[in-house]
């Protein structure tokens, strides 16, 4: 390990309502792989975005190669030799591999692009990296793994000195991961600095030299990888904070009937052989890390995405759900994690949003009965304690918490019995969160059954009667609330098989 290439010191960043980075410090040496770990929302991505100029820091200093710097945009960072290999790839599908690698700096020959030279250079580059990819292949015909290799090759060919891998292995097969590690070891030999962001403990142990752990926007500490255990890291990630009033036992009595049974459903890479049951009046928590396949599972059940196989039973009866309409008429509802994009028509009123799922109920001979629509909406607005000057208010003018209530009201008016809440409190302030929790408990008491997908462990432990943990599209474990702990959940959530 050589000298320090990058030092970030006392980096502070506040977004409206969130202290995203609280005086975080970190350093990377030449010829080392530094793991950056932390729960979802711990601030890892924000820190990297500050480094590469996507966000502007509020205070703190960044020293790179002995000079204090502040990049204005990712392109500037790239010019200086700092490159991020993103989880979502930035590839131009219709061009070839070589054309992608050299985009923006094509070799010319008499005014025309010298494709032959590009192909030769790309081939040399691949040989050096021991990757087998045909430079003349169209990018969109490659597997995700190979595309990632190309992204890495592109970074290296631009004389990168510091490469940041943002969860690079999420989309790779085992063989491809081995190949990636070979490349990373090579880069380490060549004295590059490497930051490796990942949730996978076995990878961290295998490839990194040091681990920096973040939690709630703070740097919790840095460990030497070979001197620590998986449990050490997990303990640092979750900390020892006691969260408010976790549930101690399930509210569902033994023998309560099953309302929803899902058997062996498969949908793409993110939903693999998922089976579970949901009881009447139960709140079933779905925990896992980002990209574990929870949202995809919900969408597959709801018929929003195509399923390859698997059956769904509601109240013991097998139902055919291939489209959301069929799910709705079977009594299912799905409250998207992204309210603004998928849950609400923002520029419409509360009334118009509320009756959207069941408009026929409010129609008399093809005409909408506006009076009845308003009355019913008002009833639910009162019940949900939705704060608004009136039901004609446009949804866009409401706060996040109240918008979420509109979504909930919409499904209640539609008589849904099974509610799937996907990140129900994302982007909602603390007070409104409490109200949403209270509301969910009340709905469960009234006999509605709830699936709650949440990335917040505190939320999962507080609300759920039972917890299902997913990792990479598979269910890795099920815990009764009485036996569940943060450590147990984290262990299951990082369990690769």
């Amino acid at each position, binding site marked *: 390990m050589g000298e320090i290439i990058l030092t970030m010191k006392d980096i502070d960043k506040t977004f409206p309502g969130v202290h995203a980075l609280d005086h975080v410090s970190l350093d990377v040496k030449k010829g080392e792989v530094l793991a950056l770990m932390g729960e979802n929302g711990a601030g890892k991505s924000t820190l990297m975005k500050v480094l590469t100029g996507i966000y502007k820091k509020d205070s703190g200093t960044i020293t790179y190669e002995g000079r204090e710097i502040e990049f204005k945009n990712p392109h500037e960072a*790239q010019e200086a030799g700092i490159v991020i290999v993103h989880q979502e790839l930035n590839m*131009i599908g219709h061009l070839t591999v070589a054309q992608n690698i050299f985009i*923006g700096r*094509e070799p010319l020959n008499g005014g025309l*692009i010298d494709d032959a030279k590009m192909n030769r250079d790309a081939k040399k580059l691949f040989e050096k990296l021991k990757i087998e990819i045909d430079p003349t292949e169209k990018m969109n015909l490659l597997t995700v793994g190979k595309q990632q290799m190309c992204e890495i090759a592109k970074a290296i060919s631009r004389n990168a000195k510091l490469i940041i891998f943002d969860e690079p292995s999420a989309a790779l097969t085992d063989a491809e991961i081995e190949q990636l590690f070979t490349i990373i070891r090579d880069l380490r030999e060549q004295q590059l600095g490497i930051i490796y962001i990942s949730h996978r403990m076995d990878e961290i142990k295998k490839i990194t030299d040091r681990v920096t752990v973040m939690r709630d926007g703070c740097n919790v500490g840095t460990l030497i990888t070979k001197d620590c255990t998986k449990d050490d890291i997990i303990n640092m990630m979750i900390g020892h904070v006691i969260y408010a009033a976790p549930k101690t036992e399930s509210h569902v009595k033994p023998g309560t009937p099953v309302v929803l049974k899902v058997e062996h459903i498969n949908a793409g890479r993110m939903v693999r052989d998922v089976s579970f049951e949901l009881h009447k009046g139960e709140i079933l928590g779905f925990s896992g890390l980002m990209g574990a396949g929870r949202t995809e599972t919900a969408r597959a059940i709801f018929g929003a995405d195509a399923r390859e196989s698997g059956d769904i039973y509601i109240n013991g009866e097998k139902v055919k759900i291939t489209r959301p309409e069929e799910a709705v008429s079977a009594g299912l509802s799905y409250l998207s994690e992204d309210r603004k994009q998928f849950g609400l028509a923002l520029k419409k009123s509360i009334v118009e949003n509320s009756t959207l799922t069941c408009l026929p109920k409010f129609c008399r001979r093809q005409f909408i009965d506006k009076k009845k629509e308003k009355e019913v909406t008002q009833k639910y607005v009162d019940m949900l304690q939705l704060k608004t000057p009136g039901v004609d208010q446009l949804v866009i003018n409401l706060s996040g918490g109240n918008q979420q209530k509109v979504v909930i009201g919409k499904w209640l008016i539609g008589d849904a019995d099974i509610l799937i809440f996907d990140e129900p409190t994302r982007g909602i302030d603390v007070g409104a969160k409490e109200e949403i929790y209270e509301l969910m408990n009340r709905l469960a008491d009234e006999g509605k059954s709830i699936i709650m997908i949440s990335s917040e462990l505190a939320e999962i432990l507080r609300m759920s009667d039972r917890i299902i943990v997913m990792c990479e599209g598979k269910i890795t474990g099920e815990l009764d609330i009485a036996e569940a702990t943060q450590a147990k959940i984290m262990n299951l959530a990082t369990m690769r098989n």
Partner: protein
Amino acid sequence: MEKKKNAAGGSPLARVFKSQEGIAFAATIILFVFFIVASKSFRRYTTIVTLCNYMYYILLMAIGVTFPLITAGVDLSLGTGVVCYSIIGSFIINQMGMPVGVGMLVTILMGVLFGVINGVIIATLELPPFITTLCTMMIVRGLGSILTGGLSGVWPMEGSKGGWCRNILKVKANGKIIPIGIIWMIIILVIMSVILRKTKVGRYIIALGSNKEALRLSGVNVVKWTIVAYSICGLFTGLAAIAYACTFSNITPGTGAGLELDAIGGAIIGGTSMTGGVGSIAGTFLGVLIISLLKTGLPYVGLQANWQQIITGIVLIAAVTIDVLQHRKKTT
């Protein structure tokens, strides 16, 4: 090119016929054979002349619009543009008494000007291309009429002063009309094909339509290249205006709306994808040939204007369906 296709699987011939250019080529042959068999009068030399007259300006527009289409944009101002710019040319020549050459230059410059305007609005203000060019379409439609006071435009006829402009696209020899415009078209097709395939212009325009954000992050000025794409389209609209003016005797102001649909339709039939990133000049040529064949051929088998519209519409739906299906196959 062929080798690449081989690597992706299938014999070269099979690959060609799976591409939309291949399908368009086969369709062209089938249409030709059909008209030749079905109509005796189609089998005459004058048919080629008629076909060419119609094809020149549509082809030029289509080559131009291929560039915005590849960026996943569109230019709707082509049709009224062609009429407006050629009327402005006629104004320069007739009312202002300038030589025909100056008229041509101004005609082309008008096309480039509106191409740049479209490009700047779309690239810097990030307005949707559909809306932007719909607006410039209305603007140029009004502009031509205002300039001439509603009168028709005429470019010099053969034999009169400046009548040489009529001989750019066809010459008379031994009483026969020879459509020499075909030579111009071949030259232009080759040049534009090279620009699209082998220069930075083409490379970045394809990349723009394929993944604009990736191109931006690669340090390429996406604003500049968007403007270039629409400017090329404007240039070719100007060229099409000249072809139009040199082919027809009378240019009526306020008309032209709808011509762009033949051009855009041609490009799409030839395999240019509305979702961006895909398209070729050869494909656009074949697409325009199909549309022109339908326009000139159908009357020979007794199907008049309304039927032409219906059949062209059906062909377009078929072409777009193939594009969409191919796109869907790739993304899943």
